[in-house]
């Protein structure tokens, strides 16, 4: 669907308006409000994140049914003890269905992947540039840890990103949360933005690698199809692709990296040594 067509769709008007509002608000709350201090999320990066979220949502909706069907068929294959029973007509039928659904998944992905790859790589590249410039070249190790610590007044609750590391969420939901995190970050929260920017960048790196692997797999599968070889059964390579797609798009089997949280604060004024840096 072309962007113009999407705008005409009544169903998409509300989310589009919401996203437009966030996009309009975010620069005011982040970079623009803080001036030239730490520019990790300029408008170009936010535009890239927004587009990646939209493309991810389209891909998810296109793949959800197919992957669910693939899961059911695979479960049936295992429950029917079909492994090594290729001669059984019932098992042969399930195998053919599995191969066909897998091809369907690859077909859908091959249609959506170019957009997804472009959006993901663009987000990764723009964040890469900002991270290198702002945290890599402008900061020393000491200023980096000062940035991460932030300058919080004594006794005030720490402002932290609510999302860290692999989230176990759908990709589109993750981008929605990234928006919220960036949008909620006001003054004195550059430490949070540095963590969020790093988190998104590493996610994009991972997604980019998976997309490249998937495109290779699509090429391989298409070649096999052209050679009239049926799949028969889900191979480990095919399973790895399915798992990878599920992990990135739907957050399944996602490992949540929990960071230790501070205990409730005592509220006492801490001793400050003249030796303290």
């Amino acid at each position, binding site marked *: 669907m072309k962007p113009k067509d999407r705008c005409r769709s009544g169903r998409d008007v509300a989310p589009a308006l919401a996203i437009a509002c966030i996009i309009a608000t975010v620069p005011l709350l982040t970079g623009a409000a803080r001036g030239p201090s730490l520019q990790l999320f300029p408008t170009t990066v936010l535009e890239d994140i927004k587009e990646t979220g939209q493309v991810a949502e389209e891909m998810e909706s296109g793949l959800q049914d197919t992957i669910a069907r693939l899961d059911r068929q695979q479960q049936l294959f295992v429950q029917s003890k079909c492994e090594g029973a290729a001669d059984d007509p019932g098992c042969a039928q399930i195998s053919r269905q599995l191969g066909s659904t897998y091809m369907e998944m690859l077909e859908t992905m091959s249609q959506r992947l170019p957009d997804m790859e472009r959006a993901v790589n663009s987000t990764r590249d723009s964040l890469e540039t900002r991270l*290198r410039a702002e945290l*890599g070249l402008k900061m020393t190790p000491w200023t980096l840890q000062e940035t*991460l610590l932030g300058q919080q007044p004594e006794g005030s609750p720490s402002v932290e990103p609510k999302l860290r590391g692999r989230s176990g969420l759908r990709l589109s939901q993750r981008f929605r949360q990234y928006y919220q995190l960036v949008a909620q970050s006001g003054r004195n929260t550059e430490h949070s933005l540095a963590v969020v920017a790093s988190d998104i960048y590493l996610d994009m790196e991972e997604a980019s690698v998976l997309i490249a692997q998937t495109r290779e797999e699509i090429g391989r599968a298409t070649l096999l199809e052209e050679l009239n070889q049926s799949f028969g059964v889900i191979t480990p390579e095919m399973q790895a692709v399915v798992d990878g797609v599920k992990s990135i798009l739907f957050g399944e089997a996602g490992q949540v990296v929990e*960071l230790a949280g501070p205990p409730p604060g005592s509220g006492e004024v801490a001793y400050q*040594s003249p*030796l303290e840096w």
Partner: protein
Amino acid sequence: MRNTARSVAAIAALLTALFAVSGCATTPAPQCELSGTRDLGASIASAKSRLGDGCVAHFDRYVDQLIDVAAGDPTADNKQAFSDFLLWTSDEGLLSRRQAQETWNRYFNVKFVSLRGDYNNCAQTCPVKGRVMADMQSELADKERGLLQAALDQDSYYRADRLLKETELVLEATCRACAAGGR
């Protein structure tokens, strides 16, 4: 007769040498063991006395022992006791001001002494990222002893713990970005 004289001379030389050696052994070596008290104030006084007697080479061991003593009676005041002790060592010229600062900050500050430097992260931190992270991990163990066990400062210790994890994530991303820029 001549042989007897030679033997007497040899025995005399041997005895002289023995006296000389035993004479050296009687020179008192500095007593560098700290008193066995579990009171931090008394232990610090003992450490000051020993350092004043020339046991400066034992300084790191003293700090280690003093932290153990403080952990036996943990209180927020222990931070100041260590700060005063380290300032004294600096004022007495036993340690440089920088050494005193490094020691105090290693045990009692949220910030990591291991993550310092005057050059940018791409140039300085990224090439040795693995070592920096290992050093920070080791320093966190010292902060656990200092902040958490000796000074009961849980807030600061958990913030240091989180800072380590955030640094790991941010350096992972930043160093990849630096490397990509060099391609």
